[in-house]
């Protein structure tokens, strides 16, 4: 059916190289551009009635990266850069830094020790979210996910694209367990998981 030629070889080479030389690949896609996620986070945080009390005069943001996943490191670095350019979060000054993830219990300890108000998860944490969720039960902290699928697993806030527009995702039960009290007018705009 197909004669030999450079294009035939090209097609075969692309198919083989593209699928086999690459790593298995990343199934956790970030759908909302990170700039927009940062802007949304800055605004949504002001709808959390406990944010001012939690943060004090400065909001501390911890951005988690999975060192074994290049995508995760890339998302974390980009989010750090974008957050630097956001003037305020919930009307407050803010600091953000990247930290590698080691374990759920270590994360909980770090958050308590450093008065972290917001934890942002990059990609590559699908397997760890259930344990993180348990470890953060009772903690006073807003968790945010780059990957929308994490919200259903137990992260409080996430972002997805629905019908071409950003959509807020909120895990309401986990929000209560983490003392995140979001206003009703925000919940009307969000897709809520219990």
């Amino acid at each position: 059916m197909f004669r030999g030629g450079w294009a035939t070889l090209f097609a075969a080479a692309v198919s083989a190289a593209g699928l086999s030389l690459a790593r298995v690949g990343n199934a956790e896609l970030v759908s909302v551009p990170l700039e927009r996620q940062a802007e949304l986070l800055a605004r949504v945080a002001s709808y959390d009635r406990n944010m001012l009390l939690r943060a004090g005069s400065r909001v501390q943001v911890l951005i988690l990266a999975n060192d074994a996943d290049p995508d995760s490191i890339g998302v974390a670095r980009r989010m750090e850069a974008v957050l630097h350019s956001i003037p305020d979060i919930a009307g407050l000054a803010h600091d953000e830094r990247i930290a590698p993830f080691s374990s759920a219990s270590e994360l909980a300890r770090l958050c308590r020790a450093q008065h972290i108000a917001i934890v942002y998860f990059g990609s590559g944490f699908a397997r760890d979210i259930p344990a993180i969720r348990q470890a953060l039960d009772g903690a006073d902290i807003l968790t945010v996910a780059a990957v929308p699928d994490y919200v259903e697993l137990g992260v409080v806030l996430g972002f997805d694209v629905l019908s071409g527009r950003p959509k807020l995702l909120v895990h309401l039960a986990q929000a209560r367990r983490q003392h995140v009290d979001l206003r009703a007018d925000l919940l009307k705009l969000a897709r809520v998981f219990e």
Partner: protein
Amino acid sequence: MTALRRLGFAALGIAMALAHRSVHAEPTPELETLLDENIVTTASKSAETETTAPATSSTLTAEDMQRYGIHTLAEAINYLSLGAITFDPLFTAEIGARGVFLKGDQGNHFLLLVDGHTVNEQLAGSARFDHGLGVPIELIDHVEVILGPGSVLYGSNAMLGVINVVTKRAKYWNGAHLVGESEFGKSFRASAGAGTTFRLLRLPSELTVAFEYYRQKGPYFTFEPQLYGANDLVSGMPLRTRREGPPDGIWGGTAYRSYYSEVPAGQLRLVTGPFELSAHASTFKRSAPYESYLINRDSDFDSPDSYTIDRSLWFDLKHHAGLWEGVDLDSRVYLDSYDSRTFASVSRVSGCLHPGTLTCYKRETSVAQWIGAEVQATVDWLKTGHLVTLFGLDGRLRKFVFQQDVSDFDTGRPLADSQGIIRARDETLGAYLQQTWRPLRSLSLNGGARYDFDPRFSPVLSPRLAGSLGVWKGGSFKLVYAEAFRAPTWIETSLATSDVILADPLTPERVRSFEVSFDQRFGAQRLSMGAFRSSWQNLVELHPLSIDELKAAQAQGKLDLFKSVVWSQYQNIATIDDFGFTGTYEGSLDHDALRYGLNVTGSVARRNDRTGTERPIEVAPRFFGNARVSYDLPGDLPTVAVAAQFKSNALTDRSLDGGWPRTPIAPGQLELRATISGPVPGLRMLSYRVSADYAFSDRTPYVIGLHQTYYPTNRAYDTWYLAPVDTFRVTGGLQMDLLP
């Protein structure tokens, strides 16, 4: 230090201070504004906001399509989009944009994608925007309509724009969904689909699948009798326009049997880990209730056996991988098969010309099959998303078949050799590069180009440069320069029949476009205005040869007037100059309960050919747009919506080549659609949608019947007839959603 140098340093200092201020002091937009701004992926093959996307775009959402009673992509474009417009000649929708409309192009100046997969078939570049698209409307998440040249990333056909139909993901379409809908007395549609998430080989996976069957018959249009005005030159009798009864030289009457369409279709998407497999299968059978120079030419009146059937089957397998930090690789292989058969029953003796045959059955067969692979690498140099390079290669192997045949309608016996035979294979390759740079939070720059290789012509370069600048809160300017091309089809380059001479080497059609736009958002409101200018070169048309051209062709040995007399030849013959404006206002109030929008486009487009005569473009209205308003009543009460589409009057499709002493003008159109939708009270899983549609004008700009051109020697041919519009329609449907 000289004064000039001091001034220079001062200016630099001021600029840096402004930039610093811009970077650090710009307040974050309100939440509603952030959530209302569309995220588009088609313009630059990466997710970004509409404001920074390097093109003018509009996003048609599933929610709007549901609330405004939209049934097809063509209706969505007419009622919801900016700058693009479709016409329905009672056969298959035709599409144009920004004042440019190329009659009979079958949509081959727009690139149509479904989940990023090109659905324009590769023989004639045609695409279907009506029910023939074969994607159930309930499965569509949103449609991105990108206006202007898009060849920089997509190659051929993206001259007027790129339209990407994005289907829903399983998590937003979970469960089973059944739909039954009917345009009362004329059509019905049944659709069944499902979405589910699961784990496959320990990988997170999801499946969405939908099947649809659409059948339409009628309404029964009545066409005014058109007198042929002379006897059939061969038989010496009145012209026969039907198989049945004696020949009476009259075309017209009520078409009971010949206006129908049928579309069974299926669409599937399976995502497992980093892989995504899409598949599509559909057939599209349709018959128009009239003949014209493009549709059912010379065919019998009201013949149900004069029809066209397309079949489409494609597969697309994608893979995404993060190679290293800041480096992604996306790969894709795809496989398409498309075929189309057009049948026309011709009973007039001078059209059939086979003694002893009552009716000739003319058949035109087209087949296009292609397999391709695309690899795309994305490099984020600073790992901040501010300096990103996209590089891609897209190669295809293609196979084409085309021919025309004629047989005896009653016996099936072939009456003549196949003609217009095309058997061809080729290979094409596109290489593209795009660089985006965001030096400031408010400034976004995009530059790129694509090089396309096709064995039939020299390589084509399609560049694009775009920039968007945020000037104040919610306000931004955008500038875009882009070029695009359409490769001549294999039919244009290789067809030779008894009335079409083989084309001389053709070059691709080209368009250059420059546009500027301003966008202002304030809360949930948005105002956008733009201006554009485009220049089209080397448009390919089927050119009727003059006497001098015929004699010259014979003298060059290109044809023998006594073996096969040819009439026309595909030539790069025309140019178009087009400029105009677009405007949008949309917004919502009362926490999105009240929604509204208005889109307008105005343009002046002039066509020029080798004669140097500058003329307006047929069918294209100079002014068109749409408006809509809807309100969500509280609780279980329904949503009520009204949408309108309007078009100014326009030349008909035969106004300029019909030789009419007075130019035919088609009336403008205003069409209103009122829709009421909501859950069925007491049955949460059941919802309804009812819409009523009224068109104020009962004519389209398509000339139909025998009177296609003016014959000064035949007084019966001094008037024209336009295809009708079904002015009043009511559609109702129920949807059952069985959630897990």
